[in-house]
């Protein structure tokens, strides 16, 4: 079911500055939409307004065509998985899953059937009688997921559900979430500030910054074709090097696009001295002083720190931005004046 936020404004009680204003977002039916952005950009706020846990100051929220702006959270046909799991500590695993179902008009037999179903699906059958205090973090996360699944919601909302898990468990849960998404075919809305999570799981990424949507698109679109400098620098590890030009426009390229030999249609070159070298396992990351700032290079080639080189980039690897920091497809040829960072 599609979820639409229309002209949404949010001012928290007791504050004067809106967290977001005239916020418009359409989440496609059956998409795995990830809200991605730095801390404090309003991802959680947006998610909680969709869930009905936070009131909107102005604007409307539609779920499946119906205006739910003032509908209770329990009546929105959605389920949410919280960062700290938020499972009921005084109920067994089974009790946690049953609790919500008992609030809806479902027969006892049906409830048991559903509970047993999700317990089996999430591999919790053997732990059904345990109390949450007797479970590991990963198992608790699974209970939270099972509880959400049991309601057969039209949409799953998740707020950084994996951030409390260790790296191994996190990547395991990532692939389980993808499988779950494929199996259920309902809308997932997932909040994170971890772009790996976003790029690996999403069908749709919404990049947010300071309460605004900077770009919405598939992971490929957002990664390959950033709509503005913020997205260019936010996505990638690290993000694009962006250089300010004399005519106020900008040119950007990914750290891997930089090379030491002039390519056939080399369109860009810059001289610089290697400051540091970091070994990443399969390649190196270098920080280069180019006189008007520092840029980053990633390559498998071994270069000595302290040496000076000319670095090149292929025309196809260059992204241009106009003076408003939005993407432009007209090549800019002016002289580089400064290395630019959006959030400094």
């Amino acid at each position: 079911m599609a979820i639409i936020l229309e002209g949404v404004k949010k001012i928290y009680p007791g504050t004067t500055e809106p967290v977001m204003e005239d916020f418009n977002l359409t989440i496609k039916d059956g998409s795995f939409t990830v809200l991605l952005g730095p801390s404090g950009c309003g991802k959680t706020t947006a998610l909680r307004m969709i869930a009905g846990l936070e009131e909107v100051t102005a604007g409307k929220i539609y779920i499946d065509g119906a205006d739910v702006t003032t509908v209770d959270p329990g009546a929105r046909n959605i389920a949410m998985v919280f960062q700290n799991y938020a499972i009921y500590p005084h109920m067994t695993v089974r009790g946690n899953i049953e609790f919500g179902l008992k609030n809806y008009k479902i027969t006892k037999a049906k409830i048991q059937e559903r509970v047993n179903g999700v317990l089996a699906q999430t591999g919790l059958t053997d732990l059904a009688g345990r109390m949450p205090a007797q479970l590991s973090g990963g198992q608790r996360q699974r209970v939270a997921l099972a509880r959400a699944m049991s309601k057969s919601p039209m949409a799953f909302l998740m707020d950084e559900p994996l951030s409390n898990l260790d790296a191994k468990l996190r990547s395991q849960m990532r692939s389980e979430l993808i499988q779950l998404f494929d199996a259920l075919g309902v809308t997932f809305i997932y909040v994170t500030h971890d772009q790996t999570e976003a790029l690996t799981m999403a069908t749709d990424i919404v990049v947010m910054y300071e309460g605004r949507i900077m770009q919405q698109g598939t992971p490929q679109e957002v990664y390959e074709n950033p709509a503005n400098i913020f997205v260019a620098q936010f996505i990638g590890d690290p993000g694009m090097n962006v250089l300010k030009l004399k005519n106020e426009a900008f040119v950007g390229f990914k750290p891997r696009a930089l090379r030491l030999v002039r390519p056939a249609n080399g369109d860009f070159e810059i001289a610089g001295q290697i400051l540091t070298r970091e070994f990443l396992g399969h390649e190196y990351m270098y920080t280069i002083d180019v006189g008007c700032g520092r840029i980053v290079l990633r390559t498998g080639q071994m270069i000595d720190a302290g040496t000076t080189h000319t670095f090149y980039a292929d025309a196809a690897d260059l992204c241009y931005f106009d003076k408003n920091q939005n993407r432009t497809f007209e090549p800019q040829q002016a002289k580089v004046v400064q290395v630019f960072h959006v959030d400094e």
Partner: protein
Amino acid sequence: MKKESILGKIVECVFLAFLFLLFVFPFYWMLITSLKTTLEAVQFPPTLWPSKLIFANYADAWKAAGFVKYGKNTIIITFAAVALQLIASVPAAFAFARMNFRGKKLFFTIILSDMMIPIQAIFIPIFLMYSRLGWLNTYRSMIIPFIYSGYSIFFMHNAFMQVSNEVLEAARLDGSSELAVMFKVIMPMIKPVIITLALLCFVRRWNDYFWNTVLTTNDTVRTLPIAINAITEAKDELLRRWDVSMAGNVMLMAPLLILYTVASKRIKSAFVYSGIK
């Protein structure tokens, strides 16, 4: 290093033993006095163990203090006050801790400041008011004033504040009404606190002396603490009957000790499962 830690242990043990004696001695004194003869109870220097155990003191106390009549009063008043106080404080504390409404801060401040006023400072106007209402010597006057307790509301409020908001939100998303959130989620989560509060409230009402004395002019609704105290005041005896009085006190305390034991078991088992937030 090792020497110091042994010394530290010794100091700790001595200190704990001292505290133990400090707390337990009065109980021990009460118990042995209740088993002495009237003469031995007032003898100087006092004996640390009765030369002869007089169990008949208990039967005397039972009769002298009118345990049946005053015990009934005590039980009615205590149970009613505790139950009603909990019924009123829990939702009030929930609202203060977990809901937003106009005047919340003001009302909470009033409740907090009320906690700081000792009853002794205001009992005269209260006495006059109740006497005009014709409430002296009634159960009403022993129960109704204790339905509201700033202390209980404050105590519970703090417990409610400790509960993670997200668990409550999860319950709302699960389709629970606010009442269901309170009864089915937050109250079971803070069960140890509720039991503790009930216990504190019970002990206060059970042992109450002041209020019951002030608002009674005859013995219709008088309670055990007053009746037991009266044993030593009896004019027709030659000696004050400390032995019988202490026997009465032991019987007065016994239900509290049993309650403590039961409650502390409950509190411990409830804590095990509320460990995660």
